[in-house]
């Protein structure tokens, strides 16, 4: 066990995987000499060489397209997209190719690429260094979508991702890259996909969140406890596959649900969670399902503190739900 920041845990996860398996290699912009603009790949080119930690030209299309070709041949590429906001030049390769290779070939061509990208707001990054568009990938059949919220999860989920056989979108909450630290097991360990983490047990209402939003959500749960409201907090960890069982079990117990994400509200992943519950646990519900989310605007710069869900906003929604029904 070592105390690490989240971004250090990512770094250790990458190093661990590369030590284990010579087929694992990294490619992306500024990941080699520079160690990544967030230092997620710091030191790796030194340890593993420029053939395995590959600085690429400025083309996300090229990064993902090339990674796909490597994966088809049998390597295990991990592609870094510098910011999730810059993934769109590669969107065709991800949505049309990566997610569909296995399917369209009738299983002949598995295509296992891990695409890592820092996502989310709260770092004063404005429109193009803040977005949280995980819903795009969740809606694309054939992609697994992983979002860790603690250093231990970041490493354990990343190792699972790299050893998985399917394409994985691994979205890293850059806002808490350094602000969240925790004990991280040394060496190899895997956190399974599709198992949510019950970050806090409770009986009165359920709060569902993931990634950087776990911080204000847990803080809100703490405050609710002071009010005498016992909140269960679920950290989804993987959006695809989704731990429906944990979600439904919690709502069946509490009857009240608040969903938190920083992405825009309309057609965000919170809608899917609400829809599942409205189908499968409707009769348990004692109050309307509330979503505390980003607004339906592009991500703003100067007023991002108003755009982003905060502890206070989550608390407010939870109290509303807690009082109702």
């Amino acid at each position, binding site marked *: 066990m070592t105390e690490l920041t989240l971004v250090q845990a990512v770094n250790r996860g990458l190093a661990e995987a590369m030590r284990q398996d010579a087929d694992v*290699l990294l490619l992306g912009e500024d990941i080699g000499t520079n160690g990544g603009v967030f230092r997620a790949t710091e030191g790796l080119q030194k340890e593993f060489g420029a*053939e395995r930690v590959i600085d*690429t*030209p400025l*083309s996300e*299309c*090229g990064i*993902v*397209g*090339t*990674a*796909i*070709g*490597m*994966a*088809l*041949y*049998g*390597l295990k*590429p991990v592609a870094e997209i510098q910011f999730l906001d810059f993934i769109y*030049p590669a969107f*065709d*390769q991800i949505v*049309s*190719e990566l997610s*569909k*290779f*296995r*399917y*369209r*070939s*009738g*299983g*002949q*061509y*598995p295509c296992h690429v891990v695409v890592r990208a820092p996502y989310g707001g709260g770092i004063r990054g404005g429109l193009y260094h803040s977005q949280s568009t995980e819903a795009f990938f969740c809606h694309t*059949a*054939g992609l*697994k979508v992983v979002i860790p919220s603690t250093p231990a999860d970041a490493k354990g989920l990343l190792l699972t991702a790299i050893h*998985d*056989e*399917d394409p994985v979108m691994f979205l890293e909450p850059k806002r808490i890259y350094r602000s969240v630290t925790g004990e991280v097991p040394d060496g190899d360990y895997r956190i399974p996909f*599709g198992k949510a983490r019950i970050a806090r047990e409770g009986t009165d209402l359920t709060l569902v969140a993931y990634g950087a939003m776990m911080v204000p959500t847990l803080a809100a749960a703490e405050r609710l406890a002071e009010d005498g409201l016992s909140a269960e907090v679920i950290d989804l960890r993987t959006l*695809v*596959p*989704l731990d*429906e*069982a944990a979600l439904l079990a919690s709502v069946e117990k509490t009857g009240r649900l608040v969903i938190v994400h920083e992405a825009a509200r309309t057609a965000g992943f919170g809608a899917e969670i609400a829809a599942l519950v409205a189908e499968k646990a409707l009769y348990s519900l004692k109050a309307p399902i509330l979503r505390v989310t980003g607004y339906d605007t592009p991500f703003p710069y100067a007023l991002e503190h108003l755009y982003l869900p905060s502890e206070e906003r989550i608390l407010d929604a939870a109290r509303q739900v807690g009082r109702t029904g």
Partner: protein
Amino acid sequence: MANATLTPDARVSSGEFDLPPSAWVEAYRTMVLARAMDERCLSLQRQGRIGFYVPLEGQEAAQVGCALALDPKDWVFPAYRELGVALVRGVPIQELLDQFIGNSGDRLKGRQMPNHYGYRAQNFVVASSPLGTQIPQAVGAALAARRRGDAVVTVAFFGDGSTSTNDFHAGLNFAGVYRSPTIFFCQNNQWAISMPRSHQTMSATLAEKAEAYGFGGVVVDGTDLGQVYRAVATARARALAGDGPTLIEAQVYRFGPHSTSDDPKRYRSDAEVAEWRRRDPLLRTKEEIMKTPGWTEAQDTALWTEARSRIAEAWKAAEGTPPLPPTSFLDDVFSERTPQLEHQRRELLGLLERKVVHE
């Protein structure tokens, strides 16, 4: 474009990489088989027995010549028109016809439209419809092969229109930077559906676009089997020697429609087609072969008869093959079914059982 000046590369004219005389008849046999497939499949589509078809007529020499210059270990990244390549690689026509129907014999399990196929055993990567995407993928596979120490080149197939895609730019640039052992084989068939080559881009040739990425491009007469073979064999040798990628522009003509959904009379003249038909690669190859002592018209006829009967037989088998199991479309999304997909599978089984939906 019929009079386009072809710029044969000095390297390409050297004798070292000539298609051996013994291979010509086999090559021609494959070209005849490809042409006969076009003939039959266009008619099957008109009869509504297959849903769609993309003919390659006019591009046989380019495809067969290119494929013959490759090793079975090499990886092919095709578009949707590469029947000639598939045949040379040894993909059985049975597999192809099963794919066109999407029956239970289809190795792709009915997932794709006709012509969008792929066969791992033949290192023929599964095609998709979005244009150009295979180009950087071919680069990645080549780099992977090199990393593994395999003497393998990869070949990306694409058309004149596809040089305008994002992926062309990304792929060729990465290939230049990493000197990947990749051949970019552009079949310039003069049209991208209704867009003529002359309006697709203003470079004088497509081959010269390679220079923007720091490597060489060559133009070849894609109706000339020997010339194509030489260019590809040369590029392959260079790639394996560590001399990096090559862009080959094979100038050909698409004689038929873009696909069975297309009516080329809307955008091009019969005269243009007629002019190119005089350079029909099958005629040109046959002429070469006729020079072989002992080769007769009867042998030619026999090739056609053989091709047609092989296709007829395979088609009969394909039509007789049962359809896919109804829940099969829920497989292969992931290596294992997620709980959501398992749930949806049970949902579908319920619908089938209750006869809400039918196979």
